[in-house]
């Protein structure tokens, strides 16, 4: 075992002891760990991971997988509009899940839409992570009035549901861009930026509170005191020494927050303040399809809705499992 892990020195070279464990070593340790063990034993988690992976593959390779390009207006034909799924009487094999009112292939639209939803979800989770971790570290490390101020703000924001905060931020930013024409941005980019900002800014509190809690614990440990003593700058201590030790719980929150961000994005798009219908996300597709529910074209809204629900459920299950697997108390 030990031999397998040691890097074999090339003949003739001087064997230099490696300071950091190599990638192979890390992989090996992962497959040896409790996390992998609990993963193997939970069929639901494996299923959820597979589904999530499928969505990621779809998102990354969307343009190569999708049978049509739903964003290319030139290729859309209104004569193809509202064709039912392929297995129904009037369905066509070209459009496995049918088409929407613009003649877009629904399967392709869902693949592209998941891509949009996931990109916005990831970007906003990243934003709230950066803000939350930053404020949490400062709050826990510096303490005093700054800590009190940040935590009071966090509590007040937490008392409002994220969706309301996101809507408010959304309205204010759109208003800002409307009254400041010097910012030249096209509608789709603007929608992306506004969504990422509003979802990101409305979800930082969870990270901040968690990171602050762990920082308070780490701050008094010997390695931090030692770093202080040898005169390392406090910002450097936070970044290099405390941060790596408080990241565990952050990962769990980030997974659950990804599901939440995807839901929030879909909700905002459904409410008409998100992604415009020219390059629809899952929420936009559902919004558009909702108008056709009563005229019998149920597939336009039900399929994107199912795609959204499955994605969120899979990520949620994965987050639940990760929380239990990383929590030693529950083992």
């Amino acid at each position, binding site marked *: 075992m030990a031999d397998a892990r040691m890097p074999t020195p090339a003949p003739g070279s001087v064997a230099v002891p490696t300071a950091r464990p190599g990638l192979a070593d890390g992989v090996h340790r992962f497959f040896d760990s409790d996390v992998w063990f609990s993963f193997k034993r939970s069929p639901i988690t494996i299923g959820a991971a597979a589904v999530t992976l499928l969505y990621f593959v779809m998102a990354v390779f969307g343009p190569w997988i999708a049978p049509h390009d739903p964003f290319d207006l030139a290729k859309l034909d209104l004569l193809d509009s509202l064709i039912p799924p392929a297995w129904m009487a009037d369905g066509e094999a070209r459009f496995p899940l049918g088409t929407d009112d613009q003649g877009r292939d629904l399967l392709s639209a869902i693949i592209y839409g998941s891509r949009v939803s996931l990109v916005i979800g990831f970007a906003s989770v990243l934003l709230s992570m950066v803000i939350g971790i930053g404020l949490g570290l400062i709050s826990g490390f510096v303490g005093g009035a700054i800590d009190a101020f940040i935590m009071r703000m966090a509590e007040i924001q937490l008392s409002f549901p994220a969706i309301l905060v996101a809507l408010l931020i959304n*309205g204010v930013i759109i208003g800002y861009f409307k009254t400041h024409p010097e910012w030249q941005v096209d509608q789709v980019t603007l929608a992306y930026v506004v969504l990422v900002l509003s979802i990101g800014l409305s979800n930082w509190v969870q990270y901040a509170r968690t990171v602050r809690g762990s920082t308070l614990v780490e701050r008094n440990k010997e390695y931090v005191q030692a770093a202080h003593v040898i005169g390392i700058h406090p910002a450097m201590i936070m970044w290099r020494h405390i941060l790596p030790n408080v990241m565990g719980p952050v990962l769990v929150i980030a997974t659950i927050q990804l599901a939440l961000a995807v839901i929030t994005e879909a909700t905002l798009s459904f409410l008409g303040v998100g992604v415009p219908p020219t390059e629809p996300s899952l929420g936009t597709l559902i919004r558009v399809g*909702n108008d056709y529910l009563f005229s019998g074209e149920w597939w336009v809204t039900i399929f994107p809705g199912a795609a959204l629900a499955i994605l969120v459920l899979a990520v949620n299950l994965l987050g639940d499992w990760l929380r239990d697997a990383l929590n030693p108390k529950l083992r």
Partner: protein
Amino acid sequence: MVAFIIRRFIQSLFVMFVVALVSFAMFQFIGDPVNQMVGIETSLAERAALRERLGLNDPIYVQFWHYIVNAVSGDFGLSYQHKRPVADMLLERLPATLELSLVSALFSLIVGIPMGVYTGLNRDGFLAKLFLTISLIGISLPTFLIGILLIFVFSVMMANAPPIPVFDLFTIYPSALQLPSFGRGTTVDIGSWRTGLLTTDGLKALIMPSITLGLFQLTLIMRLVRSEMLEVLRTDYIKFARARGLANRAINFGHALKNTLVPVITITGLQVGSIIAFAIITETVFQWPGMGQMFLLAVQNVDIPIMAAYLMLIAFFFVVINLIVDMLYYVVDPRLRVDAGKVSGHG
């Protein structure tokens, strides 16, 4: 207890102050409000006069002070879009939102607590596991999707489904189960309060929106009651009650359930605020003429006065409900009364 309530009251005032600051700050982002209020043909002199009259030339803290004084007296300014007092517009739509929120909160409590008790008592039962699985799916489904699915099943499919004959005995007409999907149905005015609770039509119109709105809270309450029940059933006093030979019913409901109520009250109180906010989505799906729908339109049209007033109103609800919850603790939990008496010197 009085000291505690006073402390919470001061905290609430602080929260309201911060929220007022935020909603005041929103106006500053959108540039000159005069531009929102006048037409293109208004002269510069008239604009300047309006600006002076509105007090926009005052220092910013004076403006903020005026804003707070006006808000406390119920004046939130004119809507940019409708040129009407925001307070009037909110008041008109308040009954619709409050009735919807109240009914869905009741729904989630009345269904959620028994389900929680049941799943707590029969933790390995088939039905209990089914409830838990369904609740996980319920949490994963976005609110608007639940609404759409309900409309699809109860308005679209029921209307189109053919009658189902049952062994020649009688026939089920699915179209009789069809529910109205949009609006409030017939309403009755009591003073300025427009209620939908007094007509069958209005009650029917409430069913789907309040289920949609209450489903998330239902799953939350069910899971909470379940975990609290599991916790309480392990305690010594429950074992003692069993040893005394009390009936199961007395133990489960008289001793166990009672002790799970404190967290349930806390969460319910906290959730009322989010029910009102989530009503934005439900009202949009069901075209329910409430405050949330108005707020959403305001967001789309950047009508800041409505957005700011709505934010303050929600904060006000939240603060009041939290104060009530704090007082309810004393009613529900006798231990708090004793403790408060003991430590009142430090409090």
